[in-house]
């Protein structure tokens, strides 16, 4: 079982994410919908990748696949040198908890929890102690500029602030990859800029980011 403190030993020259002829089909009634067709993808550590395409092109499906929320119909997927294509549900949950940080378009914070408690969610499932995770959550809140809002509920925050909480949450378990699905989609341009600045900073600190967007400005 993977634990947050497991240090991953892998060759820096090898990609941390490799997809080999990955396919995903959906069965819709009698017809088979082939959403992903033999995707080959490799991403190295520290890369900042933007996935672009019109709606319905399978961006979200690909993102779900990268985020281990879904299993491919065929092909192979190596994450950090480990094949995850045929893992069972518990193991996939573990991988998500330990290696992936999600940032969603609609923030997806839990309404009844405050800022730190929201940030603590992935740490909770990774077995951090209460004290440890509370400390780390405060630290991360400071990192995204919300040190003075830690006791607020999501409803008391602006959209940009909520998205910053979501980024802090994604960083909680020190993931290999941060997946951002249209992170600025629900935000006004100023807040969106703020978010992109934070993501850029993370990239410059050596994080691997994969961002799905249809805004060409972000991609470049």
């Amino acid at each position, binding site marked *: 079982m993977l634990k947050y403190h497991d240090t991953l030993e892998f060759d820096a020259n090898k990609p941390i994410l490799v997809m080999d002829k990955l396919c995903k089909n959906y069965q819709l009634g009698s017809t088979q919908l082939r959403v992903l067709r033999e995707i080959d993808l490799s991403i190295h550590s520290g890369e900042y990748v933007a996935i672009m395409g019109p709606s319905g092109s399978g961006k979200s499906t690909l993102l*779900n696949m990268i*985020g281990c*929320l*879904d299993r491919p119909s065929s092909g192979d997927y190596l994450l950090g040198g480990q094949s995850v294509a045929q893992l069972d*549900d*518990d193991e996939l*949950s*573990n991988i*998500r*908890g*330990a290696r992936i940080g*999600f940032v*969603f378009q609609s923030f*997806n*914070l*839990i309404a*009844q*929890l405050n800022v730190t408690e929201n940030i603590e*969610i*992935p740490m*909770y*499932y*990774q*077995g951090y*102690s*209460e004290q440890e995770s509370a400390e780390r959550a405060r630290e991360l809140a400071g990192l995204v500029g919300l040190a003075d809002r830690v006791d607020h509920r999501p409803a008391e925050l602006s959209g940009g602030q909520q998205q910053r909480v979501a980024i802090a*949450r994604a960083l909680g*378990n020190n993931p290999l990859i941060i997946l951002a699905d249209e992170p600025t989609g629900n935000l006004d341009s100023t807040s969106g800029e703020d978010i992109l600045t934070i993501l850029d900073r993370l990239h410059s600190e050596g994080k691997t980011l994969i961002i799905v967007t249809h805004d060409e400005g972000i991609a470049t």
Partner: protein
Amino acid sequence: MLVFFRLKRTVKLGLKSLWMHRLRSTLTALGIIFGVSSVISMLAIGEGASRDAQEKIAQLGSRNIIIKTVDPPEEKSSAGQQQTLKEYGLTYTDAERFRNAIPDVRVIVPNRRISEQALYRYKRVSVEVIGTVPWYPEISPVRLQRGRFLSSTDMHYKQGVCVVDNRVAKELFGFDDPLNQYVKVGKDYYHVVGVATEQGNTPAVKKLNTEEASAPKNGAGANTGAIYIPLTTVKNRFGEMSLQITGSGGKLEKIELQEIIVQVRNIDQVLGTRRSIQTLLARFHKKNDYDITVPLELMKQARDFQRIFTIVLGSIAAISLLVGGIGIMNIMLATVSERTREIGIRRACGAKKRDIIFQFLSETLLLTLSGGILGIALGSAIPLLVTHFGQMRTVVTAGSLILAFGISAAVGITFGLYPAYRAANMDPIESLRHE
């Protein structure tokens, strides 16, 4: 340790989301509160009634066989003309026959029971005169408190002595010491040689005794208590005739004994001896002027009846608990679909299916267990009220508390498992998209 911390945090989380919906949680828990408290109070009432009946019967003695004189049904053959003297009932010969013909008999106690007025100074109360033998205390729960009981010398010389029971002592003598006083019963004075306890201390026993008092000619229920006088003395001074004034005129009756109590050595000889007595009496009594009561049989009947009673009460209560459980399941299903998004987020953040199950199950359990604890409090209070206002005995047993608590936990798990399972098996992608 890790498990403990997790548990603590899960409970905290559960309390938080229950607190978010206070009204909903309270209403849901109410179902369990009422269910649990009704289980406890129903069982307490059942248990109380059962103990009452058992004690009542135990007072009569489980090794005893009580044969009583009853007024035989009127014989129509005597051509409408009523007999002037009616002679019936148990006789001294019967007692003699029991002693000679029936094995396993330990003690035989023949009794006279007469309702009379007792007078001390200017105070008059009605009492039940029990003409009995010195070994009467062996077969009855009556115990001597002070002085002595009747002796064989009293019997032999037909002495005018008596033993009064507590209530007579209190009602008739007040603050005087009854010992060595003289009390007038009927036409004669009797020397009080002892004070005994009452026949039964619980009201229920009193009720039973008065109901079954053999010859309630003057309304034995009105008697204050009992005065024990040697059987021979009673025979001598009161005679065996009694005159009953009815609407059409007088009716003269002759009864030798009102009851004979036979005690056997072992409890398993009771039923056999009862049959022997039955046969013996049937041979010598032409009229059906006796009635045999076996407390052991009554005890068995009461036990059977109580079991049915408890089952019925328990099932009614269990149904209310079931309804409460269904209410909980309903609410939890609503909660799960309301929190679909949260489930998706938690799954994306690394929660396994069993983490989700654990979370929702612990919420349900918190609801049912707190409902169970409150239900136990309420369920222990209701029997007190029933006892206070309903004059009914109730017994809350530790077993019923544990049972009720266990049931509430079981209800929580049973009715919480399905919603939790549903929550855990939602597709994370779908639930993240859920609005």
